[in-house]
């Protein structure tokens, strides 16, 4: 009943990522970095293989349940962390993003899901995959920006904050926000096909909108007063809290019972 071999795949990825991080931390030799990078790639490949296998065995895209979205999230987060590390050499960013990716795999290990092929007719649409995948990708990018924020807040407290830290956050927020916009608009176009209207202020829609607005505020205020770092760092952190409510917190709010977005019975 449990996801096919999930523990085996997840443990393999966790081991590969842990080894990569350990090598990265312990050694400054270039050869080791190559091996470490290879190990990050191996972990990613293992998880990608698992997703493909799961997709085939379920006969539906594995993006319906929260556990399945956590799976994609951890892959995207690891991928984004890896790309940013390769591009800008932020070692700490790779550590944080692999750490978070691993955490989400552990959450899934602790909460194995039932093996469930059902996919309600409203979800059977060509919009399903792009809508969810684009969203999860945006979430992963924005999680990256919140990692930058946490680091910044910490450094600020110690009095050694570098303004250049926020430049990395800006890049992540800009790309993440563009994907967030795609997800929101894909959702609107799909809702028209499935439910007859593009926007119904369903609780999930409302919180997705609030998430979009939160990052919109960050972008505007960052543009208006580039020097107010402390406020920007906190705005970034707070925005991510709103994002988490939209992602799964909304299921626990009093409005959830009226939502068409609660797919898990």
């Amino acid at each position, binding site marked *: *009943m449990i996801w096919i071999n999930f523990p085996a795949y997840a443990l393999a990825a966790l081991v590969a990522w842990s080894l990569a991080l350990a090598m990265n931390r312990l050694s400054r030799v270039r050869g080791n970095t190559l091996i470490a990078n290879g190990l990050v790639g191996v972990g990613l490949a293992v998880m990608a293989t698992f997703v493909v296998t799961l997709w085939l065995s379920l006969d539906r895209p594995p993006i319906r349940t929260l556990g399945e979205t956590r799976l994609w999230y951890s892959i995207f987060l690891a991928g984004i962390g890896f790309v940013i590390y390769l591009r800008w050499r932020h070692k700490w960013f790779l550590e944080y993003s692999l750490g978070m990716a691993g955490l989400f795999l552990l959450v899934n290990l602790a909460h194995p899901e039932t093996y469930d*092929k059902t996919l309600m*007719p409203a979800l059977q649409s060509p919009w399903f995959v792009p809508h969810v995948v684009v969203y999860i990708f945006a979430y992963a990018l924005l999680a990256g920006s919140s990692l930058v924020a946490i680091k910044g807040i910490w450094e600020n407290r110690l009095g050694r904050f570098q303004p250049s830290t926020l430049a990395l956050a800006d890049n992540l927020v*800009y790309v993440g926000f*563009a994907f967030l916009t795609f997800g929101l608009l894909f959702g609107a176009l799909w809702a028209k096909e499935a439910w*007859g*209207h593009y926007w119904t202020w369903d609780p999930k829609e409302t919180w997705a909108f609030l998430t979009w607005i939160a990052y919109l505020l960050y972008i505007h205020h960052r543009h208006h007063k580039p020097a107010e770092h402390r406020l920007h760092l906190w705005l970034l952190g707070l925005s991510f809290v709103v994002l988490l409510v939209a992602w799964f917190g909304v299921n626990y709010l009093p*409005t959830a019972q009226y939502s068409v977005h609660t797919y898990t019975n």
Partner: protein
Amino acid sequence: MEHKEAPMWERPWSFAESFVVGAGLVLVGFSLEWANGLARMAELSWPANLQAILIFAMLVAVNFAVFRHRPWTLWLMSVPAAIASIVAFTFMALLMGLVPQGAAMSEPWRRLGMDSLTSSWPFGLTMLYLLATLLTVTLKRSFPFRWRNLGFILNHLGLWVAITAGAVGSADLQRLSMVVEEGKGPVWYADDGKQIFEMPLAIELLDFEIEEYVPKIAFMDVATGELLEPQNQHLFSADTALRAEILGWSLRVLEFLPTSGRMGETFFNINDFGSAAAARVLARHADGRQVEGWVGAGNALNPYHPLRLDERHALLMLPPEAKEFRSKVSIFTASGERLDTTVRVNQPVVAEGWSVYQLSYDETYGRWSAISVLELVRDPWLPVVYTGIYMMFAGALYMLWLGKGMKISPAEGDAKPEQARQGQSEQA
């Protein structure tokens, strides 16, 4: 923030003043709701909504053209006004996200419009605030036009078009439901829950078809009759290829009948109207106990048939979930045409300006439902809303292309905080 340096309402207006305006609009809006009697904002239908939006856009545009450098216009196009109007509008959206809409509510809350915020005054007024700042700043970036502002214009104007058309168009939006039944001939009326409308088209249900997933079997607490954590591990599919290990029981489905009849304690294959699914299950407990027997799903015509495992637990088959359902229909239009087609979930059919959606069916009958519930939607403003949405798509692509659009290097940003603080004079 600003008021440390300048007293309130001294020009140029900044955050404090902008937020006071936003809060004021929310207060005024709720007062108007409380005062009742006044028509609600969302009730302007065609052509009054078009006129209203044209007048609003013209007021903003004329103000921009004539008074471009006056303090209030500079304020409207400033980031503080933008942020405050977004926050005010978002505050209303947040209320909607926390307060169940359309739910029963005690009188003071209902009188404030808390149960239907989208058509309330505070929602409308904060939206106008947002639309005024959005349009003014779009005009500022459009005249004189520069190519590098294209992404900005697409993002901001697209949002303006989508929100405006969506808001004023909601009064012209019609969503009606029509119930059609096999063998009962064409239906040419539909209702919105309050009123029945005669339609320019008639729909006859030729056949309602449904495909179902293999149903799930759940653990039931015999004492309370409740299912054990149905969303979690105490649930398995009645698929003969699977085995399940739950609460010390090893479970196997030996035989599965999608439609069945019952004779005493056994079930047999039959495909009569109203027959429900059943499965023969073998359950072995780790301590050696063993139970084998039938578990049957219920529906409108058949009672559930649980299988008792021990004094605490029984197995219960849940009604099967729909995989796909569709209505084969003939649609007759007022102009005398006939369209034979199939309406599916996610695949609406368009006729006479109406989109026909597959909404529901008689779920107590499940696969034997002879009725189909269709939704008929007419939204004349849709093309305008979509124009706005596509502009935002283009704007988002532009954002991706440029990455971080702000051309402020960290050093530069730190070097001139004084200049940045003069929000209104900032030429971005």
